[in-house]
Every structure is written in C-alpha cells, then in structure tokens.
C-alpha cells in the first residue's frame, strides 16, 4: 500500500497551524493536510470563552471559541484536509510522518512539514510545589475545559497561582461561572503581567500577593487549604477548594524530541532560523512551541509568514529539495531568558528579521547586539514587564558578510 502524500503536512490545529494551512492554499499549494490530535481543531482559544480574539485576523472582537470556529471554517473553505483525532507520533527525515488515528497507524509522506504543537502551562509537579497531592489542583486550561467544554464547575473557592495574562484569564473564567478565587499568589516579587492589568483583580476583590511562597498544599482527598509564606515573612493558611496553576508556559515539544530534532534548552522548543526552519531542513515550526508564549494573533501571523516561505520554496523548482540551512547563531546573553530565532541565514527573502526576546524578570535598560569581535551592531532601550515579549528589529543590518556568533544582552539601567 502506498503512503498518502501531501505537499505540506501541518501538525497541530491551533491558530498558527490553521493560518499556515489557509495561507498555503491561498498561495496555490495543492495538497495541505492538518493533523490535530484532539477531537476538533482550533487549539487553546477553543476553551477561552472570553474576548479578545480576532482583531488582527477578522477585524472584529470575538470570543475564543468563536474565533477558533472561524479559523477552522476558513481552513475547510480553503480546501485544507483537516484531520482531527490524528496524532503524529514521529517525523522522520525526508518528510515521512507516522500518524495514529482511531483507524490505526499509517505512514504519510509530505514535501514539507510544519510543526505547530503549541505550549502548555507548567504543572504543580514541574514547579516542585510541596505538600499533599489532593484532587482539585489543575492548570488554567483544564479549568477552562471543565467549564467551557464539559459544562462542569470543579470548585468554588480556588487559589490562583501565577500573575501572567493567563492568570487574569483564569479570573475571568472563574467569575463568569460563579467561582470566586480567594487570592492570586506569585512567588516572584513582582507580578508578571503589566501592572495596569491588575485593576481587574482589584475591582473583583481578589487579593494579589506577590512574593508569596507555597509551603504546602493540604487536604485529602480534595484540597482544603494552602499554607503560604508571604512576602513579609509571615505564614498563613488560606482555606480553598482548588488550586489553579497558571502560566509559566513550556513548549509542547514531545514530537520534536521523539523525532530527534535540535531543541533550545532556553525556550524548551525547537532551534529555528528566521524562516521557522528547524534542524531538519524539511521541517518548519511556528506558534507558541517556538516562543512560550504569545497571543493567538501573533501565532496566526507567524503561521502565515512561515507558510509564505514554504510556498515560495515549493514553487521554486531549484529549491524543491530542502537545503541544509546554516547561518549565524544568535545567543541570549546576560539578563535574557531566550532569543528566537536562534539562527539567522542569508537565504530567503521577505521582511527583515525581528528577534523575539524574553528577559529574566522585568527588563529596564539597553538591549545590545554585538558580533564575535565584540563590536556593537545595534542597541535599543526597553522597559518591559517580566513575561512581556520584546521585539528587537534587525532591519537595515547587513549580517551576511560574516559568520561569527551574534550575542544579544541586556544592560540594566544604572
């Protein structure tokens, strides 16, 4: 039996994968398949039952589920083969995919592969949070799946751990389902999203406690309380019936690992060049697995951009065999958590690359890009909240002449 074959196989049906699929079809790529392991495509927005989605994509404000439905409908209308309940378990060299579905296991062939498997929140176990291990401890996404997809309310008085945008999304989800969070705690000394956003918990009378360490989760079989050491050193016991671990996103990189593609320990996701190409020249990446974490709109735009590159490559006969991509390495230096892309090639056209940067904690100072000899190529002043995506444009820089590593560092304001 011959393997089913496609021009492009996309793994993951979130905003990045869907927008890439739509763009590929719009650019005349004939056979585009999208493999989604869940029961339906749409990604994380499916269970974010609140606005603000869709401004950039559809020019209007939508809730997450409405946005996800529109993206899926657009992909189907564009002629994308959308395959839910299809799990890609391995990608091999030469565009071979092993796919598991309720019908069993099949091998699929594709000229190019785009992996867009997204990110997930760090678990209580990953964060090594002490205490007992009762029922009622979950991530924001699980809570949202409870209320939006299954119509169930798992608790009434939870504690929210984390202070990122998704933590505020957790508050909105709670309040629209009669759940009253007892507090929001953050182990860092400062909240992780923009301070202005914390008007929301203030208005809703949810106390926000930065600098609070969890000493123990208590209760059996269900959560009954959480013991905390507050920023001022005092200890307190908060009664609650659930704990929501929000944010601290990590890439969903299981397939990438299983396929022995090169990972960047800094992001936990794949190492890519500015076109989204990974260590296998036939495999591209887009969305939150590359840079935990950005908005759905950002991932959507990135999916389109990477799709444009793939379509151009497929249209160019000379390039129909993917080439090994070399290029200059970009290294995240002092004060920075990560820089994406990790490599810059001279290949390909399109807009000048923009580095996507995260600082370790809040960033206030100068971002400085230098080359192997220490020569400063460009600097940019920034002032950003801890988890805020930072853009560093390389427009106008000629990086082709040399091959030494580039280093980006943060010099804090004195």
């Amino acid at each position, binding site marked *: 039996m011959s393997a089913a074959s496609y021009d492009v196989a996309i793994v993951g049906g979130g905003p990045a994968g869907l927008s890439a699929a739509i763009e590929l079809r719009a650019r005349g790529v004939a056979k585009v398949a999208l493999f989604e*392991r*869940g*029961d339906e495509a749409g990604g994380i927005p499916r269970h974010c039952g609140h606005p603000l989605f869709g401004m950039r994509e559809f020019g209007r404000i939508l809730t997450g589920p409405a946005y996800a439905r529109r993206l899926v409908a657009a992909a189907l209308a564009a002629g994308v083969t959308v395959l839910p*309940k299809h*799990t890609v*378990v391995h990608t091999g060299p030469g565009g071979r995919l092993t796919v*598991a579905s*309720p*019908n*069993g*296991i099949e091998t699929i062939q594709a000229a190019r592969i785009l992996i867009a498997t997204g990110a*997930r*929140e760090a*678990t*209580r*176990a*990953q964060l*090594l949070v*002490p*205490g*007992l*291990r009762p*029922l*009622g401890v*979950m*991530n924001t*996404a*699980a*809570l949202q*799946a*409870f209320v939006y*997809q*299954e119509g*169930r*309310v*798992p*608790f*009434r008085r939870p504690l929210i751990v984390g202070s990122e945008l998704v933590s505020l999304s957790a508050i909105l989800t709670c309040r629209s389902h*009669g759940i009253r969070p007892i507090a929001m705690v953050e182990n860092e000394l400062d909240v992780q999203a923009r301070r202005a956003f914390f008007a929301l918990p203030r208005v809703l009378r949810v106390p926000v406690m930065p600098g609070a360490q969890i000493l*123990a989760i208590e209760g*059996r*079989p269900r959560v009954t309380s959480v013991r905390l050491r507050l920023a001022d050193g005092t200890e307190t016991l908060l009664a609650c*019936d659930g704990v929501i671990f929000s944010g601290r996103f*990590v890439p*969903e990189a*299981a397939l990438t*690992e299983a396929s022995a593609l090169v990972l960047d*320990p800094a992001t*936990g996701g794949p190492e890519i060049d500015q076109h989204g190409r990974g260590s296998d020249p036939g495999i591209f990446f887009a969305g939150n697995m590359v840079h935990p974490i950005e908005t759905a709109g950002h991932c959507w735009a990135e999916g389109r951009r990477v799709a444009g590159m793939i379509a151009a490559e497929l249209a160019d006969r000379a390039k129909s065999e993917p080439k090994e991509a070399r290029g200059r390495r970009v290294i995240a230096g002092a004060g920075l958590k990560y820089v994406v892309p990790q490599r810059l090639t001279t290949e390909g056209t399109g807009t000048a690359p923009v580095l996507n940067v995260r600082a370790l904690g809040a960033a206030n100072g100068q971002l400085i890009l230098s080359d192997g000899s220490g020569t400063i190529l460009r600097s940019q002043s920034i002032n950003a909240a801890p988890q805020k995506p930072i853009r560093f444009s390389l427009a106008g820089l000629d990086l082709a002449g040399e091959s030494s590593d580039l280093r980006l560092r943060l010099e804090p304001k004195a």
Partner: protein
Amino acid sequence: MVAFGNPVDTAIIGAGVVGCAMARRFCLEGASVVVLERAPDILSGASKANSAILHTGFDAPPGSVELQCMQAGYAEYMQIREDFNLPILDTGAMVAAWSDSEEARLPELLEQALLNGVADARLLSRAEVVAREPALGAHVRAALLVPREVIIDPWSAPLAYAMQAKALGAGFHFNAGLLSARFDGDLWHLQTPIGTLTARSVINAAGIHGDSVERMLIGGSQFEIRPRKGQFVVFDKAAAKHLRTILLPVPTARTKGVVLIRTIFGNLLVGPTAEEQEERDRPDVTRPELDMLIAKAVELVPALAQAQVTAVYAGLRPASEEKHYRLHSLPEKGYFCAGGIRSTGLTAALGIARHVHGLWAQDRTAGGKPITAPPIFPLPNLAEHLPRDWQVPGHGGIVCHCEMVTGREIEAALSSPLPPGDFGGLRRRTRCAMGRCQGFNCLARLNSLTEGRLSVPIAPEADR
C-alpha cells in the same frame, strides 16, 4: 450496608500488593476470601509508591524469611507473567561505587549475593561500567552487576492477582476499614463502616496500620510501625535514554538508598528518600528533599541537568522497629500477620502469600480443594516498549495524549470486574494523566468520562 452472609474461611485486612497476592493464593488453594480495604481502591497505601523493581534478593539477609519470600515471589512472577500479560523491562541492576570506601565494600556484597544464590552477580571494572553506561558521572569507580534484577509494572501486577482472586470468588470491599473486632472462640466478627463480616480466620496485611490493626484484633502488638517516607521524582521520558541499567547505591544499614531507574512506562525515576515520621496519613512532598533527589540524579548522570520533571510523589513504607518482616501468627485464634513489609513487598508478595498460607494450612483441614484450572486473563499492556492499545484500530480516539491512553482503555478499566474507586486507581490502571502535562489537556474530559463511576469523583459538581 453490605450483607456479608455466611462466615468466610479468611478475611484479609488491606488490599495492598500483599493483600492482593494473599487473596489470590488463598483462593487458588480453595479458601473462601473477603478483602477489607479502608481506601476506595486497591494499592492506596505504600503499594502505590515504590520503585517497581523485581529483586533477586542479592542483598537480603542470608537465610531470612524475607529472602525466601523474595525469591519465591520472583520465581512465581516469572512463571505467571506471560499468562497475565505482565511486562518486564530486562535491565539488570548495578550497585555502583563512587568512592574508595564504597568500592571496598563491593566484594562483600558479591559474596552475599553468591551466598543468596544469585550466582550470576559479578563485579565490573570502571571501564566495564562506563562501557555499559556511558552517561554516568566521571567519578564512578566500579560496580556489582546483578543481571536478573528487572523492572515491572508495579500496579498491573497486583491488579492481576486481585482480579484472579475476584474471578475465583473473593469479595473485595472498599471504604471498609476495620472499626472493631471480636473473636468468639470460633469466629471473628469484624466491624466496618459498610457492615460486619464473620470469618474463621483473619490476615493482617494492613501495611502502615499493621500494628494498630494487630492491637484491634488481639489486644496487643508484637511490633510497632515506624512510618518511613519515601519521596520520588519522575523525569520526562526524554531523560530515559541516558540510562539502561537500574542504578543502586552501596546500601547502608538502614536503607537501600536512592535509586536511579527507568520505569516500564518510559520515564526515569529517582528516589526514594528515607524519612522517619510520626504521621501515618501524610505522604507529602517537600522542597528540600525534591531538590536533593534531583541534585543526586544529576550527580549520578550529569546529562539530567537538562531533564524536565514530569511528576513527584511520596509514599509511606511500613517499616517497623526491626528490620525484618513481621510474619507471625496466633493459630488458636486464626490470626496471621504479614507486617513490616517495608521495601521489598512488590517482589516478595507472592512468596509472602505462599508462606502465610503455609502457616494457615498447618492446623486446618477445612478450606476446600486447590483450584486445578484457575481462570487466567491477560491484562492490558501499559509498558512503553510493548504494543499499546492506541496502535490497534477501533480504539475510539486518544483521551490522554501524553501517555497515549485511548477511550477504549478508559472504558475497559471503568467496566472491569475490579473497577477503580478513585482517580488514582484509574491512573494506575490506564496511565491517564500520568504524563508530562498532568491533565492540562485531559482532566476535564476524564471527569466527564468517569461521572458517576468512581466512589471518589475527580470533581463533584461543587456547591455554590
């Protein structure tokens, strides 16, 4: 309330691995059996948190009952495992020496292994160790290799014992902790929250509560349980490639020490700690100990510095004030005790069951005839290296993506003759939500799939 009916030959207190193996052995020998378990499911105490090694007994006290039970248990597991589709991961174990003083102790460990009949144990030079395990830290000196130590599925094995007992007529009752007990000279009257059972004999397999159950039964206890907490850290599956062989430390007088070991499910595990504590219901994880375990793992295998943590857990081993098993009986009252089974119980359970049955049968003529052709049924395979359900068409879709658990597997577990009583039981039977996302993706769906079918639901519709 449960109508327990006529007196049974034996009541077993506790459905840990020892209680499950005991129920199977007594049923196979033709006895009528009821198991009383205080938790909502089997394996809810120490049996749910071990390192999943099937031991050869190479380091057990020579001539001890423990050694005899371990070796009988090992042999019986190997004999029945294919019938029940119980997996092994054939890894062998190395007791690795990391210092002069540890290296100096290897010959005596070898001698003990040979004395214990583990004839294939042998010393490895540093070069041999490194050739076998290139990822080990550079300061490794030498090792004792024990080729027949293997890794098993610590939950499917006891489940198989319990399922066979159940098929042979054993009653399993949950949320049925012993409240009081009376022996009327002929029969035991065992009062539980779900009713009062009468039995001609009683076997104490109550694990962490072994001594208090013994006091309740015979008014005093020959031993005292000293709970010993063991914490574990489970690394992501990507970390398992760094190690093949079970890595054991040179043991101390008190504990076997921290082990680095693959799991049959494809992860890498480090643990346990050995922490004495008073509380018997508090298997909590604590930050300094978790940090210590991770640091220890990185010291042994430096590449683990990059590894992600998938899960952390803790169990309370029912150690007693003495190191050996507390196997004793009061034949005139039909009382038998399998207590203080602290860390070799998974291996020894089948042997302990034979041993206790031997004591029980000595002065007993009643109790039926041994079953000649017991029912045998394969358990679903959960081992990563063997074919799983998701590879077989018609599974209805994958529910848990990290561990590739299908809807068909969830349904099969829920509708089995010994279904899970709580979420932990479902996790142990199917692997659902045991993976790297810990339910980020599937928890809500699992709640819907199990609605009305677990005695302790994942998330009851919360009160306003």
